[in-house]
């Protein structure tokens, strides 16, 4: 502590150590956060439902997505990655999960989502020809990426959707 540079070095080292403690404390506060997310998704219309050239069932759907994820944001949240997955079971695969829509939300104000008609952003293709009359679940997932700490994943599963019995 006897020269200018020694004192500067000592100050910066201490600042860095305390900053680590601050980050840890901030990430601990996230652990106690409980959100009250609201998610509602409808399949408005089946635009097309056909066998693709490769011989697999493919559906083109239009969704009505409305969600309020503002309560997921905390003071330590950097952004949300939100995606909608179509989930169903077939004789070939017990679990099928297809991501059909996603969005990155960087601000709390943008977490109020209202999309009256949005087509699937990514192709919904089965492995095989098992999608006719198939029951579907739609699950909205969100990864809350913090400024410091670990990523939290939340989800809301909506049930009771069904694909048509015939191609169109």
């Amino acid at each position, binding site marked *: *502590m006897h020269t*200018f540079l020694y004192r500067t070095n000592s*100050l910066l080292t201490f600042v860095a150590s305390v900053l680590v*403690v601050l980050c840890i404390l901030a990430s601990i*506060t996230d652990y106690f956060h409980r959100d009250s997310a609201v998610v509602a998704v409808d399949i408005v219309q089946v635009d097309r439902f056909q066998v693709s050239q490769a011989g697999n069932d493919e559906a083109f759907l239009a969704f009505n997505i409305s969600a309020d994820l503002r309560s997921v944001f905390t*003071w330590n949240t950097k952004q949300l990655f939100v995606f909608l997955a179509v989930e169903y079971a077939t004789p070939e695969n017990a679990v099928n999960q297809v991501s059909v829509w996603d969005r990155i939300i960087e601000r709390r104000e943008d977490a109020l989502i209202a999309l009256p008609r949005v087509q699937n952003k990514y192709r919904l293709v089965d492995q095989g020809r098992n999608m006719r009359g198939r029951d579907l679940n739609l699950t909205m997932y969100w990864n809350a990426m913090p400024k410091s700490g670990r990523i939290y994943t939340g989800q809301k599963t909506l049930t009771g959707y069904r694909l048509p019995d015939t191609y169109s």
Partner: protein
Amino acid sequence: MDYEGQRLSEQIMQWLIIVAAVIGFLAGYITSSYRLMLEIYTGGMVLAFLLAVPDWPYFNWHKLSWLPEQPPSEDEAAASSSTLAVQKSKQGKRSSKGKR
């Protein structure tokens, strides 16, 4: 900066930074703004730098009082000349080794 000044400097630095961290954390959490926490903390760091790092007069309130300079006695003079002689002989050995 004297010894008491060094102690004072370290205490000022650590206390300011800890207080800035506590205030910043509480303010950031209450206003739910991570940015505010970092701003308060950075402000505390700058303040601690300004108050604790330069050699301000208040770090020199406890000057060490050295003994007044004394003329060397005969024994000391003899001792210092003998150490000089030893250093000279060592240097001579080193230079002779270097030549080989």
